[in-house]
């Protein structure tokens, strides 16, 4: 390739950077440019002179692509729509519908098992708002999602059997536990099992490449985008539900409850699979959403955390400090971890990344300080009040997150000092995933027996 071709190639790349210009337009413009250059060379100009003049006549790339954008504004939006199904696209849609239907059937069968025909609680499974149903809630839906991903990834049967076996063991264990009715260990299982199963989904998502840091990062991205899509679907479902209630109210007020018990669980279960399908179908857009939200919220959270940390440092932990607040701090640290994770997943080549790194580091350190203050008080309190399943679960998660954030802080400081990239931070997060999974497993299978299922 000669020099002129290289320069035309660079120019073409610059033109294509605007999404309003597609490859065919670029072909057309390039052909124009080449012809103009040829004419100018015939007139006696050197190739680089001809190139400069021809590019100048064609116009500023930004101005021309802005003009293209006015005519083809649809192209700027195109990537938000679902791509036309190519060959196999229809099949992927049908597969998704099949698994969504499976999730709906699973949750409805479970709900019916938990309810007897006269609407009272079933002897075996308890009522739908009771222990059995809520404890197993994750099991009705997430294995279906894992199955859907396994089909997408064409996972080999032995591996599917291995993962399914693990899930089966956990299922049996948590259902054989003789919980005390209304016990907190049962609630803990119900809360932690979906999160644990999400890691099973992850194992399928990475198609068995469990050790690959890049695949793990993909799964983290998938999780973020899935959460966003699922939230949007739930919002849409909320509007649908409210409208349904309003429309049915005048003609059949007594039927509303019955309709909703069918619609809400079905929608919630199907949404899990639909959201995953959307994420997979629109990977390119998708990588943008969670990082954008992260970029908006990182500075805001940093300010909030710094102010709170300063407040706690000055005022000390007040008398009204409630031990329930520890779970609040768990959530806070989880959010900070998410900000770090999605921040680095987007940490591109753009300007201002250093500023963002500093803000993120400030948020992390403030979160650590805040949490340490809370932990100290918590230890004192547990000494006072004894150990309960809830407190052990909250404290354990707190420690797990604290270690994660401490690692982030250390690597963040090093990164700022040496001006390195975010690779180490990314590796730290991806290698930390098993710790989360391990902790969740521990809560689900070890805490109930340790506390005699109280």
């Amino acid at each position: 390739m000669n020099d002129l071709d290289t320069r035309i190639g660079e120019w073409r790349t610059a033109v294509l950077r605007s999404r309003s210009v597609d490859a065919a337009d670029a072909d057309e413009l390039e052909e124009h440019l080449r012809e103009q250059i040829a004419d100018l060379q015939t007139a006696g100009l050197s190739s680089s002179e001809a190139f400069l003049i021809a590019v100048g006549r064609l116009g500023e790339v930004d101005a021309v692509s802005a003009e293209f954008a006015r005519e083809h504004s649809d192209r700027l939006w195109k990537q938000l729509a679902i791509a036309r199904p190519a060959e196999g696209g229809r099949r992927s849609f049908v597969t998704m519908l099949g698994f969504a239907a499976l999730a709906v059937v699973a949750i409805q069968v479970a709900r019916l098992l938990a309810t007897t025909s006269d609407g009272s609680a079933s002897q075996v499974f308890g009522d739908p708002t009771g222990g059995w149903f809520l404890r197993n809630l994750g099991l009705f839906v997430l294995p279906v999602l894992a199955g859907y991903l396994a089909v997408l990834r064409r996972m080999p049967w032995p591996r599917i059997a291995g993962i399914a076996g693990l899930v089966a063991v956990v299922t049996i264990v948590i259902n054989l536990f003789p919980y005390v009715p209304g016990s907190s260990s049962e609630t803990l299982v119900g809360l932690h099992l979906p999160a644990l199963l999400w890691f099973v989904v992850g194992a399928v998502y990475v198609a068995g490449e469990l050790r690959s840091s890049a695949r793990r990062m993909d799964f983290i991205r998938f999780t973020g985008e899935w959460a966003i899509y699922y939230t949007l679907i739930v919002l849409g479902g909320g509007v649908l539900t409210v409208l349904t209630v309003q429309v049915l109210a005048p003609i059949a007020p007594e039927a509303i409850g019955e309709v909703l018990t069918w619609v809400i669980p079905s929608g919630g279960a199907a949404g899990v699979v639909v959201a995953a399908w959307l994420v997979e179908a629109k990977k390119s857009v998708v990588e943008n959403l969670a990082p954008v939200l992260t970029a908006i919220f990182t500075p805001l959270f940093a300010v909030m955390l710094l102010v709170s940390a300063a407040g706690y440092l000055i005022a000390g932990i007040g008398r009204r400090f409630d031990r329930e607040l520890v779970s609040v701090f768990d959530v806070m640290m989880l959010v900070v971890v998410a900000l770090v994770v999605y921040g680095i997943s987007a940490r591109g080549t753009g300007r201002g990344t250093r500023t963002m790194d500093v803000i993120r580091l400030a948020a992390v350190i403030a979160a650590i300080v805040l949490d340490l203050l809370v932990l100290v008080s918590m230890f004192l309190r547990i000494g006072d009040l004894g150990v309960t399943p809830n407190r052990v679960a909250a404290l354990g998660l707190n420690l797990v997150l604290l270690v994660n954030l401490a690692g982030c802080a250390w690597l963040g400081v090093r990164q700022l000092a040496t001006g390195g990239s975010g690779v180490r931070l990314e590796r730290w997060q991806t290698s930390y995933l098993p710790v989360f999974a391990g902790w969740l497993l521990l809560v689900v299978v070890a805490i109930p027996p340790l506390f005699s299922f109280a």
Partner: protein
Amino acid sequence: MNIDKDLVAAMATPLVLAILAEGSNYGYAILKRVRELSGGELQWTDGMLYPLLHRLERLEFIRSEWGTSDTGRPRRYYEITTAGRAQLAEQRRQWAAATRTLGGLWNLTAQGAGA
């Protein structure tokens, strides 16, 4: 003398349609023809021609087809449609009316100034 930018924009559609009415053509050649006809007085940013062509195609005044150039590279040829010819006739009537109006006025002024 360079023709004012707004006037160029207003002329662009009839100009392109009129050139294509002479026979189907492609972007670079259309611009060469414009330059030739205006004696270089009509300055046009070359790149702006293509969004205009695409707009005219969307309005179905012209249609396009990919062919190849002499060097074997892909080249997009544009051809005027029946609707395009009708549009051109309409534009022509409007431009005639405009030049007649201005012309009448300016001829009068020229005579008045000469008298």
